[in-house]
């Protein structure tokens, strides 16, 4: 799905989190929102997911105005920084949650839910953990379960907030590859937020560098590296 951000701005009370920003994300792209904390990248992601309402501006999905769509209507697969797994549910129940939450008319039958969850567990290469509780999983396993749970609702796009933030360096490298593979298999337009420029450069097709609520530069990783558009970008990617 093609995403268009049209002059989106957001302020919380008197503090401005986002100045009007515009950005076009081509269908099927893997995009990194890169910037230091306070740059507005998470706010932008949350506006895309419908968790925040912009102070001004519009969001368009495939050319259609989606600004007023509620979070439930957006069908955006969202992976949170803390993963936000449901502690009292097994991995299976976590992944099945989005399907079970549907109104009766559109809810798949139990057999279909089981089939889909099993398939997703295979996709994240953890077929044997269905009956475990989140507290019994490693950090990397939790991240992949959160990803599977987001994919279960057949989302129109995938949004990830610092998906590797809570992991140690070794697991982080492994899972980057995992995300790339899942993106390539599903073909979903994917946006992830990171403060780690290596991660953005290695993983993304398109990198959006942000600072102080503004977009500094948008481009392919090699272009940004070769031609930083502003002093901030130069300093940030050199760091």
């Amino acid at each position: 799905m093609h995403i268009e951000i049209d002059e989106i701005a957001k302020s919380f009370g008197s503090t401005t989190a986002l100045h009007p920003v515009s950005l076009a994300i081509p269908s099927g792209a893997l995009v990194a929102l890169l910037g230091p904390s306070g740059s507005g990248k998470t706010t932008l992601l949350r506006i895309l997911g419908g968790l925040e309402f912009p102070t001004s501006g519009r969001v368009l999905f495939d050319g259609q105005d989606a600004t007023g769509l509620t979070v439930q209507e957006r069908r955006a697969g969202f992976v949170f920084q803390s993963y936000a797994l449901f502690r009292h549910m097994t991995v299976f129940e976590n992944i099945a949650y989005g399907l079970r939450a549907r109104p009766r008319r559109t809810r798949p039958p139990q057999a279909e839910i089981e089939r889909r969850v099993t398939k997703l567990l295979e996709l994240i290469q953890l077929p044997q953990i269905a009956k475990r509780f989140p507290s019994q999983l490693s950090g990397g396993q939790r991240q992949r379960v959160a990803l599977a749970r987001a994919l279960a609702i057949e989302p129109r796009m995938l949004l990830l907030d610092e998906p590797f933030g809570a992991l140690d360096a070794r697991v982080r490298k492994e899972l980057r590859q995992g995300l790339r593979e899942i993106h390539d298999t599903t073909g979903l337009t994917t946006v992830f937020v990171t403060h780690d420029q290596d991660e953005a450069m290695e993983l993304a097709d398109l990198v959006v560098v942000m600072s102080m609520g503004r977009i500094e530069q948008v481009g392919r990783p090699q272009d940004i590296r070769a031609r930083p558009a502003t002093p901030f970008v130069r300093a940030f990617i050199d760091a």
Partner: protein
Amino acid sequence: MRALGIQKSPMPGFALGMGITMTMLSLIVVLPVGALLAQGAGYGLENVWTTVNTPRVWAALYLSFRLAFFAALFNLAFGTLLAWVLARYDFPGRRLVDAFVDLPFALPTAVAGIALTALYAPNGVFGGIARELGGKIAYTQWGILVALIFVGLPFVTRTVQPVIAEIEQEVEEASATLGAERFYTLRRVILPMLLPAALTGFALSLARAVGEYGSVIFIAGNLPLKTEIAPLLIVIKLEEFDYDGAAAIGIAMLLISFSMLLAINLIQIWSRRRIGHV
């Protein structure tokens, strides 16, 4: 000291601290409870059973336990609602209301007892309304229920409130991004997370209500087989100088309390294992 299994410690005062603790514990708690059990043992297990196994005692035990259960059930629902409102919503006077929730802990039971009776007796404010509607609250089982709800009210709220404050916002947001409407999130995500704490509060409220005396006797009516609670039977036996009979009922009540204490611990172990200790 070795014999007690204490490890060598540079900290002084073990002997003094332990001495005071054990002396007090023995004098105040262990010896009296021991005397109660000894009285029962001296009376004989069979006689204890014969005393308890009479319609009047059974009726009282059943009444105490049943009404305590319903009161705790009400407090489970209302206490959870109260905890949610106090933890999540902002309204004028919220902090004052929050402090006020503990009043049943701070108000002496005898005061609560006569106040509730004045309120729910046929010539009282609420009792008058009930009479208009053709009902009666004070001097019936309804009156006992009201009193037991009062004394147990804060337990569930106070156990659940901190858990609500600890729920990560992201968990609720995750539920919404997966397509769940707010009510579904409340039912399937938030309530199950609150359940272990709520059940602990339920058990505390139940334990308190089963043994409650002061707030109940004024409003109960105290009719044998109908509105006579178990602790009152002990008082009656004591007034008749029937120490064996009183001990028998006391032991029965102790057993009920201990099984509830055990239940509280099992609930906590179960919930900790299921949800993990974070």
